[in-house]
């Protein structure tokens, strides 16, 4: 059969984008292939690894478990949309850099979008809560220790400003 195509409008990182996609186009593939936003990474494509996580109307969701056509009318925030328009990093990005929260970087976009949304609702997590918050994302490099530190560090930056001392969360 001829595949059904859709002209869709998506609002991504505050910008209205258009694409022509088949029904079965996953949102993750639409972002990467149709819109050229390759910051969103694709790992397992069945919802386990978390690398493809984006925010839909501010809530983190797996873009590999959504069809692009279903995302019409919703506000999508990818990792490219976390930094300020002037290029200065989001607190979570800054904390990842300071705490060495990434090595190869493949899983990082998923962690960043999850943690940025989490800290909006939970501004002062404990270490246990930070671990729970990232429980749905896999990282094969870091052993998670520095990612947990980065969650706590990001919370501190958000609460106290960027000049908060680094030492407590990131001894190295």
């Amino acid at each position, binding site marked *: *059969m001829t*595949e*059904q195509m*859709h002209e869709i409008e998506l609002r991504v990182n505050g910008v209205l984008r258009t694409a022509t996609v*088949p*029904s*079965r186009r*996953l949102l993750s*593939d639409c972002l990467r292939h149709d819109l050229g936003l390759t910051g969103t990474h694709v790992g397992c*494509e*069945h*919802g386990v690894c*978390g690398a493809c*996580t984006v925010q*839909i109307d501010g*809530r*983190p*969701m*797996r873009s*590999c*478990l*959504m*069809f692009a*056509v*279903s995302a019409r009318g919703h506000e999508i925030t990818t990792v490219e949309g976390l930094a300020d328009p002037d290029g200065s990093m989001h607190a979570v990005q800054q904390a990842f850099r300071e705490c060495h929260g990434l090595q190869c970087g493949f899983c990082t976009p998923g962690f960043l979008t*999850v943690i940025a949304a989490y800290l909006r609702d939970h501004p002062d997590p404990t270490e246990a809560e930070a671990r*729970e*918050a990232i*429980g*749905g994302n896999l990282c094969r490099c870091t052993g998670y220790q520095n990612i947990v530190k980065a969650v706590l560090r990001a919370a501190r930056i958000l609460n106290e400003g960027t000049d908060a001392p680094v030492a407590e969360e990131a001894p190295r």
Partner: protein
Amino acid sequence: MKPPAFRYHSPRSLPEALDTLDAVGHDGKVLAGGQSLIPILNMRLAAPGHLVDINGLTELAYVRTDADGVRVGALARHADVEADADAHRAVSLLRQGLRLVAHPVIRNRGTTVGSLVHADPSGEMTAVLSLLGGSVELARLGGTRRVGAADFFTGPLESCVEPGEMAVSAYFPRLRGRTGTEFIEAARRHGDYAMCGVAAAVTLDDDLRIVSARAAYLSVSPVPLVLDLTETLAGATPDTAHWRAAGELAADRTEPDSDIHATAEYRRHLVRVLTARALRTAAVRGADPAVGGDGQGSDDQGSDDRECGARD
């Protein structure tokens, strides 16, 4: 790992959705949260010709609580049900089970009704609905029917929803009397499919003696299994009850299968241990004077974790 081609329908109203489902019949499938369906499509385990996306039917995104229980609409996300304070006060078992459904990010999109229709024997919500004796309302062009939990699940990944039908809501009745509940499971990692899970409800009389003890199980039977374990506990108080005896009885009555995640013998061991723990916690909650009447506790997640200690 890409889904097969299908025709996409995005109805603007429930009647239009039922019209479409009626027209496409066997070849149609409802897409709600998609957190189970889309992995299945991505892995090419299913290839429906038509997907009817109900994400536009926002009138179905409700959680309504009254004196008798909680009704959850087809588009209510797990996260919304979990966060609903009224639902938690009326039926604590909902939140107790929901916090074990995959990960928060999955719960942001996945729907409670969708997970019931998916009928995964490892699904927490199937056990919750079964233990409470809840029901699912199914609509089709020209009519609706209500199916009780005992008849709803017909096999692994198989519910009684027929072609042309759509589950529009699920009803979780409130437990009566001085009743406490608990939901615990053992998984290799938090958020994974459980090797065994137990939902328990214990009812006490005014002298805090146990009059009823029931448990529902996941991952140890093809459809949700509900066991009445009252005979091992009746008349005892939460302090004197012989919880291990209840666990032994439950283990005798389950026949789990082996798979790559756990042997049958290990799953039966988990039934024994988790049953005892879940019943004990449920009874303690039921006896809590703050709970009283037909409530099931004002517990938050923190106290859940302290009391069950089963996810070590």
